[in-house]
């Protein structure tokens, strides 16, 4: 029997991370554009949530390797198939790379990486102005690319749900739809 939906664990992780990643992007651009007292808790939250999401994406990848994914509908044109594949790869890549860039750029600037609860992460790179500048720019511009890709992903998901109605959205929907129960 081929599954038509991602497993419950996969859907739970997908939606938890979706909320987390979107929150990270908003916290990121919000915190760096304010001098208000919120800046201090926001940046601590940014580091903490970013570290947690990094652990979660590692778990997610393991789960994906073991549990696989339901096949895309046969009716899907090859271009869309390719687009789906490439964009999912890119999303995974960014989920892995963004936290490492954040952690690396702080290390290169000799900032202590302090999370909520007084947890300290060790530096992963030596102090270096050149590295800091590179990673800082990468963290910033990849964050914008990440947001654009998520908008595209969101649009595609809604396109599947509302226009094509081909079951792709239901495959990741948090709750099953009644008329899909047969699966």
């Amino acid at each position: 029997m081929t599954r038509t939906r991602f497993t419950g664990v996969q859907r739970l992780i997908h939606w938890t991370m979706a909320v987390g990643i979107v929150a990270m992007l908003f916290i990121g651009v919000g915190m760096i554009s304010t001098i208000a007292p919120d800046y201090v808790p926001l940046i601590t939250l940014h580091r903490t949530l970013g570290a947690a999401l990094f652990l979660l994406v590692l778990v997610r990848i393991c789960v994906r390797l073991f549990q696989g994914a339901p096949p895309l509908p046969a009716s899907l044109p090859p271009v869309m198939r390719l687009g789906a594949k490439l964009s999912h790869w890119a999303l995974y890549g960014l989920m892995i790379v963004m936290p490492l860039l954040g952690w690396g750029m702080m290390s290169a600037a000799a900032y202590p990486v302090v999370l909520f609860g007084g947890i300290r992460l060790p530096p992963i790179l030596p102090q270096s102005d050149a590295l800091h500048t590179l990673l800082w720019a990468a963290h910033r511009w990849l964050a914008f690319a990440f947001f654009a890709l998520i908008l595209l992903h969101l649009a595609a998901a809604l396109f599947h749900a509302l226009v094509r109605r081909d079951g792709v959205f239901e495959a990741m929907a948090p709750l099953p739809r009644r008329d899909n129960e047969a699966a």
Partner: protein
Amino acid sequence: MSRPSPSRNPFIPLAVIALVVAGSAAAFAYTAGWLSPQRLTPTKVVAALAPPGGPALGHRRNHAKGICFTGEFQSNGNGAALSTAQVFTPGTYPVLGRFNLATPNPNAADATVRVRGMGLQITTPDGDVWRSAMIDAPVFAVSTPQAFYELLQSAPKGAEAMKAFIGRHPEFTAFAGWAGTAPWTSSYAEDPFNGLNSFLFTDSAGTSRAVRWSLRPEATPVPIAPDELAKRGPNYLEQEIAQRVAGAPQRWTMVVTVAEPGDNTADPSKAWPQGRRTVEVGTLVVKQVEAEANGPCRDINFDPAILPRGIRVSDDPFPAARSAAYARSYDQRTAESKYYPRTPVTGGAKP
């Protein structure tokens, strides 16, 4: 299986999708401040620090002239009654710091800069890092970060603008009084350095108290008139402190002042009343002085919100504003390092 067929009129769903995407993008732009040009961002504050000719590339956007030092902090254990931070348990902890002048111009002559500062970092074996940036004035110039931004905008506009500024921010007069009357010294070693901002110390019982800290020099201050200081040369302070420390380590006592209920902990322009409990927590010993260009303090951000466990920010709005602005300054200056060679051009360094 009763899967519905593709909808025949896709216009409404497509409009819904377009709305959702556009709405998300707008929310993002709003959060980033792109739709609110009046928001006071760290970038704006840092830009306002720049002199008319633009910032000195590769250098700190404020307190740009400075020299590195290393040494140690000898903790006497008294501070443990106030905070659980390891730095207050008796012992000796490594220190990295920077003596500096409050000017955006790294080549300013010493006698032209009224305010002097110190950046300080103390690290402890538990991995905690405590950074602080302090000045010799006993109070800060203004009550809020917004007022500081206004000051930066008013000062270059001349006497009329400053008069209007002081009308709106009468707290400025306490600082101006100090600047006009306090004696100058001819050595960093004779200056006190005050944290001015309040922070919360938490003790082992979990009680938090608002405090401010200061470094009091062991050396006796010898007053000097600014024009006398000018005669000694534009970089006298750096030469003097390097020589003095080479001769003998220089010391400061760290004093923590504890607020009482009702004291204004949110406003660094207001001194707390006399008679507050003070605790001498240890001694800063400066043992070595090194040029900034390739020294260990160069690429350090003495961000006052970098604190060990046992110390937190209080209701004082400055540390957050400073943390945001210092990060921006740091991002900019480290990206410009090619304009500030690591080996000083005038240093005559030989292999």
